[in-house]
């Protein structure tokens, strides 16, 4: 039943029966719905930054594009690998292979930290060559957007820490792992879009 036809139901007609309808989100556990909603919300945040970016670039006299440190490519690769690692963890969890879970989960987290470290290096490199935050709107946006993306990953790492701890303590964590994987894929996607945007301007 599509949403539209659901909204067309005349609810007063079925009085006395336990009318059923399949849930809009039947197959998913609540936590997944919650995560999806959250992703919608932060997509709003990132998208609005991009709106601002695009408008600001349109009207500026002083836009000096930031050089994109090569390390960013390496970072991108790291984040892709992290994402793959989480996918791997998911598979391991589905096949109930604890060793696989542990290894890949750790790998995912460490790769993410490496990514964050790499981003810091990129910042460092830019600051070193005189591209300060407030010197130019291009710089401002670069730091702002990468910083925000990094913050979201750090938030993810908190959850990752908890999950890892629970894995090693032997709890059942399949759901958490799936959530992490989704979140990481999402942030990878955001990063690719952001990076593309930064590169193309």
């Amino acid at each position, binding site marked *: 039943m599509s949403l539209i036809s659901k909204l067309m139901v005349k609810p007063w007609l079925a009085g006395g*029966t336990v009318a*059923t*309808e399949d849930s809009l989100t*039947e197959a998913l556990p609540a936590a997944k719905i*919650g995560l999806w909603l959250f992703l919608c*919300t932060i997509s709003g945040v990132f998208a*609005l930054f991009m*709106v*601002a970016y695009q408008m600001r670039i349109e009207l500026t006299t002083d836009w000096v594009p930031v050089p994109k440190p090569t390390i960013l490519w390496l970072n991108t690769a790291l984040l892709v690998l992290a994402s793959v690692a989480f996918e791997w963890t998911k598979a391991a969890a589905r096949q109930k292979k604890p060793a696989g879970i542990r290894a890949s989960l750790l790998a995912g987290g460490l790769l993410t930290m490496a990514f964050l470290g790499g981003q810091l290096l990129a910042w460092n490199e830019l600051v070193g060559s005189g591209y300060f935050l407030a010197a130019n*709107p291009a710089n401002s946006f670069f730091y702002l957007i990468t910083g925000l993306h990094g913050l979201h990953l750090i938030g993810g790492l908190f959850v990752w820490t908890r999950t890892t701890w629970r894995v090693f303590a032997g709890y059942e964590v399949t759901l958490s792992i799936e959530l992490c994987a989704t979140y990481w894929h999402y942030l990878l996607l955001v990063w690719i879009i952001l990076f593309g945007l930064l590169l193309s301007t």
Partner: protein
Amino acid sequence: MAYVAIADREAELHEPKTFIGKYIWSQDHKVIAIQYSLIAIGVGLVALVLSGMMRLQLAFPNEFAFIDPHNYYQFVTMHGMIMVIYLLTALFLGGFGNYLIPLMCGARDMVFPYMNMLSVWVYLLSVIILMASFFVPGGPTGAGWTLYPPQAIMEGTPGSDGGIVLMLVSLVVFIVAFTMGGLNYVTTVLQARCRGMTLMRMPLSVWGIFIATILGLLAFPALLVSGIMMAFDKLLGTSFFMPAMISVGEPNAYDGGTPVLFQHLFWFFGHPEVYIVALPAFGMVSDILSAHARKNIFGYRMMVWAIVAIGALSFVVWAHHMYVSGMNPYFGFFFATTTLIIAVPTAIKVYNWVLTLWQGNIRLTVPMLFAIGFIFTFTHGGLTGLFLGNVAVDMPLSDTYFVVGHFHMVMGVSPVLVLMAAIYHWYPKVTGRMLDETLGKLHFWLTFLGTYSIYLPMHYLGFLGVPRRYFATGVTEFIPESVQSVNVGITVAALIVAAVQVVFLFNLFWSYFRGKPAGHNPWECTTLEWQTPQTPPVHGNWGKELPVVYRWAYDYSVPGAVDDFIPQNKPNDETTGEPHETGDAEGLHS
């Protein structure tokens, strides 16, 4: 039915043992609702006092030594911001959303109780940060609740140092709190409804809160983004919104940005925000009208569609706040059109409220009085909105007291009347006691008549051209002396209305101990929250078994039924095919 299983996860219900677990770090949605409400009402009273101070200055300019332009603008700003965000948004969604969603959907609790608990404490934190700004050097920000840069972060505006920063921080924290709560409300509605509670059987209150929360989740990011960028401009010297300009005669380092971008982002949030406070009110008032008129809500499906349509449309009307802001003037055509279109679904709601009363059997209880008051004030305020929405008409009226009159009529009193109606209506469920009726009527009459006499004249000041956000009008050649007497009248009314809120608070307090015991369903309502086995409902809401829903929320005065209402969880009699005889929902009150 996947969701039933989720709704029934008793094992996961966190049973509190200690006092602290029960009332402070509680994960029970009802306790959290009450915590939200108390904080919101508390901070709302601050805003109320601030409005009193503003009115004193406007009526008796320069009589009170403690009001000067510096703190007048701070009062205006804090009054507006607190009322809109920290009172109404928090009370409708955090307070009533929390209380009603699980009970009306037949769930044991929100789906993420722990996050729900965090939400209220983070909200408290945001309120504390906001209040702290009263105590930093320079005081809170005085930039207007719209916080337009460059002004908000430049010298010459009160609180342009500490005040604005704390305001932005507080807003960010509020958004975090709201997001934690909001994810809960939406997911609970999607996932935790009890058996038989299809989407179209949900009471309109739930619909209103549900859609409003979705609006919030999508709109608050715009505030977050603009807030973060403004904080960067202020603290780190970036130029997102700041063009080249001077500041108190000296050049500064900004260059290239544009304040119009902030306004677009702000109103992309700001307009949905006004519907965030309006939609729950629309929903709750529908339920109250229907229950007390003993009649089904008229045109239920249209009401649902209208809520959804208003919610969706509210994202494409934002720039009607910017007709005279210097944006590309051709936008005016687009936004005037969308803005007036939004009047159509809203009009349908108004018609259906009145048509619900038509051929009803109206009990003029206190909640009903407030609900009727709402219809009156909302119609008035909505219609003045049509003046402002029509771009050419907005030009002479924008930034005058006409706008102040408009938004107080739709926002400063209509949803507030619904809140009060809702408190009178649901208080018996929350506490098990009725609120005192005589005091309630006193409260209603003074609030209703008082606010109307505050806001009606404001429109006429606006026609005259009296600007808003003016500390004093001084001498102008077109504003006659008589305006001063209007202002005095408004202020007197405002002070009376403010005073009568004390009666209300007294009533809330006194009835908690001395009120008439309410029984489990004093208004004889059909919706699930009135069918709980205990009143007030205990942790977990439903005793051993979750309710099962057999009908929509509005089976009032069904032809052939014995009682004039049939609770949602009441099955038809197996033999006759008719609803059971008694009004009591069996099986639940053993």
